[in-house]
């Protein structure tokens, strides 16, 4: 049993999945599902199709060089079965998987960092320009640093004027 890679999208093809196509020059193309197979029949180049691994690696969206890729190289010699070896391999696979996914997500995060910084800068600028849209007038009133100082004027009101009823 062997886990192959899809020729089009580079995902793993598990046994029982997908179609193998043998060309007349005896080159074998393996596909993981009919989506990849149909794209191949349409003669699409996977390096130009955005969702494939080939495109992502080519355009620097996913990491290309890493020492962990050595583990996935194709080896044609079968290993003699050794229980300890098998056990250690299984444990290592788990660890390596985690490391690979961590490194890949780090790569993507680094790639997206510059965009984040730029967006924050733009947002700050926009806040400065449009502060009147953001702070309510009440808040401006309470916070004396944001508006003109208030002047208190005392108005004296004669009380007799109010209490006297209207003359007939």
């Amino acid at each position: 049993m062997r886990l192959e890679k899809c020729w089009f999208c580079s995902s793993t093809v598990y046994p029982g999945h997908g179609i193998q196509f043998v060309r007349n020059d005896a080159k074998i193309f393996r596909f993981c599902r009919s989506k990849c197979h149909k794209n191949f029949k349409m003669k699409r180049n996977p390096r130009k199709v955005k969702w494939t691994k080939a495109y992502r690696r080519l355009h620097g969206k996913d990491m290309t060089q890493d020492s962990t890729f050595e583990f996935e190289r194709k080896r044609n010699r079968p290993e003699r079965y050794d229980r300890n070896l098998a056990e250690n391999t299984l444990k290592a696979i788990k660890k390596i998987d985690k490391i690979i996914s961590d490194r890949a997500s780090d790569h993507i995060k680094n790639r997206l960092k510059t965009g984040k910084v730029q967006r924050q800068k733009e947002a700050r600028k926009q806040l400065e320009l449009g502060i009147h849209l953001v702070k309510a007038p009440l808040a401006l009133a309470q916070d004396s640093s944001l508006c003109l100082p208030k002047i208190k004027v005392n108005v004296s009101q004669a009380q007799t004027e109010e209490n006297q009823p209207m003359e007939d």
Partner: protein
Amino acid sequence: VIGASNRRYAHIGDVIVAVIKEAVPNTPLERSEVIRAVIVRTRKELKRDNGMIIRYDDNVAVIIDQEGNPKGTRIFGTIARELRQLNFTKIVSLAPEVL
């Protein structure tokens, strides 16, 4: 299709009766000769028990005689492993690649 009464379509490993439409000159075969052949590659997918599905790029058959030995001496292209189970050992051994 030999060995199956009135079957419509033949698959990889079936022996068929065919007639020669085109012949390369200077071969022992002549046009409009009725011969038997075994199909080795089809464009239609071949399904295996382990779930593997194989498709070739062309439809190809190998001309054989009554016993199942190929009439020619060379075979071009890949052959499916199913032919070995069907006792076409000579064809399988001559094939450059068995898939």
